[in-house]
């Protein structure tokens, strides 16, 4: 099976580190204060980044819509009106952290939860 794999033409690269000190490569740093109530820990970050979270969720909705518009409508209706209830069954402090993010960004709780369980959903 190894031999059937696609031939690798690329050489092992060198000299890539450190990457340029530009926004294209650099990542911002934030502090999450665990002394705060769980619902407030992420507020300063997600308020600043709400647009990018909304954008990501919209891209995901567009992707599902492109597959089947009617099904997408049903799925996101369920997500927006029912999935949020699942948050109450999550362990603490994660349940409150997710609720806090939904409140701070005004994104439906079900959508914030969906984003936070992407890993479990996409392991098939």
């Amino acid at each position, binding site marked *: *099976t*190894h031999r*059937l*794999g*696609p031939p*690798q033409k*690329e050489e*092992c*690269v*060198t*000299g*890539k*580190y*450190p*990457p340029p000190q530009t926004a*294209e*490569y*650099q*990542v*911002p*740093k*934030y*502090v*999450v*204060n*665990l*002394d705060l109530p769980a619902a407030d820990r*992420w507020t300063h*970050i*997600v308020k600043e*980044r709400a647009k*990018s*979270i909304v*954008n*990501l969720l919209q*891209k*995901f909705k*567009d*992707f599902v819509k*492109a597959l089947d518009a009617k099904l997408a409508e049903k799925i996101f209706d369920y997500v927006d009106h029912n999935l949020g209830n*699942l948050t109450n*069954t*999550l*362990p603490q402090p*994660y349940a409150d*952290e*997710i609720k806090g*993010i939904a409140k701070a*960004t005004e994104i439906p709780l079900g959508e*914030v939860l969906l*984003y*936070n*369980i*992407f*890993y*479990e*959903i*996409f*392991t*098939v």
Partner: protein
Amino acid sequence: CTSIVAEDPAGKLYHARNLDFGLFMGWDFKNHTWVITEALRPMIMNIEFQMKGQVVYKAVTYAGFIGAITGMIPGVLTMSMNERFNLDGGYLGIIEWLLGDHNGKWMSFLTRDVLMYSTSYQQAKETLSKDELLAPGYYILGGNSSGQGCVITRSREKSLDIWELNPGKGVWYLLETNYDHWKAPLFVDDRRTPGMRCMNQTTQQNVGFAGIFNVLSTKPVLNKLTTYTALMQVNAGKLETYKQHCDDPCWPW
């Protein structure tokens, strides 16, 4: 994803990873990019979790995502998680959870728990091996002293295998992608062979942030799904994260 835990000749441990996400979720034909991957890249951030003004642990995440897929407790351990695709996947775990079976742990919440409460590599290894999970996965773990590195292959119920560093016998690095290490990877998605080839070319003498970053920047280890590369050195408590871009020609995964 590709994760590497490696040890230099002095016994110093390095842990690094590429986070790849967004496969089959919309291909942008004009720009030759994955739609979700591109949307995620500007959301990458390093987080320091603090208590009483002191750093408890560090993690890399995306804005609004509270779980930890990459993280470290400075001076104690480093950790990353790779997806393990399986028919007995996380969607079944979610259904069970909805039906009231709450025995399984959510993957990225468990890693937060491990980063919050673990006091040693051994303790973390035990937790990640034994706890029941909602989804299968690979946990890549590094400690703070020679030989402390492993890849834990998990089904939802149990640990299937623990693959360990063994520098005394020449196993100075472990490289995990998204396939069980004892099986061949899918032939159209072999990032393991080029990754290992580049690690071998790098040699143990040159293990460090620069050497490993070069390996993770080599195509197809670096591909259109790669959002970031994170580099960790536990003793120094260093965590560096860089957004990654794969210019054409580049593999879609």
